[in-house]
Structure formats: C-alpha cells, structure tokens
C-alpha cells in the first residue's frame, strides 16, 4: 500500500516546486469537497496532496481595477459574505452559493470547482458569462487565461504538470450590466446541476441589449459559451421574440448525454427555459 504524502506549502513557488517534482499522481487540495470524495471512492489515488490553503493570497479576495481577484481557495461562504462582490457579480455569487450544502459552502472553492472540470460545475457558467480569467502559476511563471480554457473535458484540465490556479479575476462590471445564474436540480438542494445557465448582459439607457454572454453547463463535455444565444439578445429589448430566439439558440447548442441525472431531451428543453428565466433576472439587475 503506497503511502500518500501531504504537504502544505506557504508560497506559490513552493507549491509549484512540489507539483513539478511529484512522481505519480499529485493533487491540489483547496476545499477538498471533490478530492476527498474521489479518494474515498478510489477514483483518484494520489501519491502527493498539496494543500494550498496556507499560501496567504490564496484565501483572500482583493479589489483590483474595479473588479476582484479571488484566491483559488476562497470558500463559497466567504464569497457570500463579501458585500462588494455580491453587489457587483450577484450571478457569480449565487452560482457559487448553489454548490452543495452550508457545510460544503464552508470549504468548496471556486478554484476547485473550476479545476475539478465537471461539466456541471455551477460556478463555471457564471464565471464564463462574466468574462472571468484565471491566474495559472507554473514552472514557467504565471499566465492569465479565460476560465473557459481551463476545463478540457470531464475531469480533465488544460493545466500542464506543475501548474495550478492561484486566483480568479472577476473583471470590473460595466455600467448597465447584470448577471444571473440558474440551474435545475430535482431537489431544492444537494444535487448536481442537470442544466445550468449563466448570463451576463448589458443594457443601454433605452433598455436595448448591447452586449451579452450566455454560458450553459451540463449539456456538453465542457461549459458552452453560446454565441448565437448572445446574438439573439443583442440589439433587442429582450421582448418575447428575443427570449424565444434565445431559448431556441441555447437548445440548438446543447449536446448533452442521457444519464442518471437527466435525459438528452430534458436537458435540452430545460436549458432554453433556464436561459429565458436567467436573462430576465440579469436584465432586472442591469437596470439596477
């Protein structure tokens, strides 16, 4: 039985060093709400666990250029308690807050939710819709990448050996912009999203949509940024016809699977429903 090594470095450099030199499987531990379950069920058998929570900046939210730099291990509950983030990006905070129970909220991190690379991760569509980026540290230094580039497929990321996500940058929210995230689950809590839709849109003074991003989760191997859905909204006043076009565009983009959580037909249909409902909420927020 191979022993597992546990390390809790205090700097990004040390963490990169440990991950780079690891033999066998190395796993980054942030909130641990996915990793520990995967270890317990034998889906992951790491030889090295690098707990990044002792790195100071990784547990902090910093205001920056009108936006925020959110450490990769900031827990959901900490986000929900941050008034400025809640005000700027309510959709992202709600999406994060939907992940699991109060107990899970005490631990689960946005970095973990992103890097676990589940197609159904709740925070990811909201981050993608908001145009968030991730700071990746690695042996060659750091790089900024759009969050949608991190997951590469179910359980797979684009991160190279030795790399990990240090923080996520939420951009400054432009005037007249609102975001929202809605997901569907069979119960009211504790389920994995059957479908999730994140929408960020900007309205001008007349109420016409001038920009939009629509991201859909759990309907493809990775979160989809649906450009046709955005086009359906831009230039409209989000009237019934625009909403119907949005619904149709989102459904057209879906490539879901049948599984224990939902059918192809169900996911497809409900993605359109949620898109309409999320767009309405985002629009209300955009109007302030």
């Amino acid at each position: 039985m191979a022993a597992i090594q546990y390390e809790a470095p205090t700097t990004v450099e040390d963490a990169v060093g440990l991950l780079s030199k690891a033999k066998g499987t190395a796993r980054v531990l942030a909130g641990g709400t996915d990793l520990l379950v995967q270890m317990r069920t034998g889906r992951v058998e790491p030889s090295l666990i690098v707990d990044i929570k002792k790195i100071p900046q990784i547990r902090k939210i910093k205001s920056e250029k009108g936006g925020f730099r959110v450490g990769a291990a900031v827990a959901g509950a900490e986000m929900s308690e941050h008034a400025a983030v809640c005000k700027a990006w309510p959709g992202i905070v709600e999406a994060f807050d939907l992940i699991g129970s109060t107990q899970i909220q005490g631990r689960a991190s946005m970095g973990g939710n992103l890097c676990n690379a589940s197609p159904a991760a709740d925070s990811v569509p909201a981050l993608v819709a908001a145009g968030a980026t991730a700071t990746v540290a690695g042996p060659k230094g750091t790089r900024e990448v759009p969050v949608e580039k991190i997951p590469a497929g179910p359980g797979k990321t684009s991160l190279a050996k030795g790399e990990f996500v240090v923080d996520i940058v939420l951009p400054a929210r432009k005037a007249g912009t609102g975001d929202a995230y809605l997901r569907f689950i069979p119960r009211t809590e504790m389920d994995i999203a059957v479908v999730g839709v994140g929408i960020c849109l900007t309205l001008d003074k007349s109420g016409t949509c001038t920009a939009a991003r629509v991201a859909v989760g759990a309907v493809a191997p990775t979160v989809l940024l649906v450009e046709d859905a955005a086009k359906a909204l831009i230039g409209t006043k989000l009237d019934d016809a625009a909403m119907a076009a949005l619904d149709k565009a989102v459904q057209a983009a879906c490539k879901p699977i049948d599984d224990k959580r939902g059918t192809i037909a169900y996911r497809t249909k409900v993605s359109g429903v949620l898109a309409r409902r999320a767009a309405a909420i985002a629009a209300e927020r955009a109007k302030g």
Partner: protein
Amino acid sequence: MSKYHVTTSINGEEVEFLCEAQQTLLDVLRDELELTGSKEGCSSGDCGACSVMVDDRLVCSCLVLATEAEGAKVETIEGMADGDQLHPLQQKFLEHAALQCGICTPGILIAAKALLEKHPDPSEEETRYWLAGNLCRCTGYDKIIRAVLDTAAEMRG
C-alpha cells in the same frame, strides 16, 4: 507508513494526534480520539451527520483531512453543552421531540448552532435551506425546524 503529527484545538483543549495522510478529520475524531458523537453517514458530504466547526466555519468533517486541522480550532457536539448545562438548542430538541433515532441529531445541532450564531432570527425557509445538508430520515424535519425556530425566539429573548 509514516504518520503526520497534528496539533489542534478541540472543544477548547489542545490535542495532539498522529494520522495517515488520507485519514479525514472524522476518522481521527472517531477512531483515534474516541469522540464518536460526530457520525459517519456517507463519507461524501451528503448527509451532514459528521458536521463540526473548524475555525468557526460549519463543515463536514468527512471532507476535511485530519492533517488540515493543524493549528485549527475544532468544535464538536461533545463541546456543545456547558458541563451538565445543555445548550438551548439541545434542550429544545428534547422538548420538541425533534429527534427519533437520533443519529443525525449531533450534526443538526452543530449546524443549527452555526445558523443561530449567524442569523439570530432566521425564517423557516432560511432554516430549511441552511439545514439542507443534514439528512434526517425519521422526522420529516417538521419538529427539527420548529425546535430551531423556537430556540431562536427564546435566545433573542
């Protein structure tokens, strides 16, 4: 197999233990420290029976590695009563018959205490969502929710 030496505070007392890297805080509480009030219902964070406070945050101890408890402040059901003085929630749970088999009770009490510390006057809906991570199969939650709301009212005075 080399073990990790961890120093932590549990219910206000400094505690040291040795653990394997894959052992969870729940494993150590139950198997090494014989604090069996925290229950293992699922080991996947879905039932909340193992709820404890770590550094003032409500967590599932099955989803925390024991090594992570180094330097932390851990609070478990064993520390909830003050000597033989039950916490108001414990008393109300008894009065409302808010437990049947009682296996979920320690976790729910810890979670409810965390709720009332954060929201002294929760609505029924807030209470239900806060406790959504604590499964109870016996009660249908009715008497649990009533006990929590009644305690909140009493503690507000």
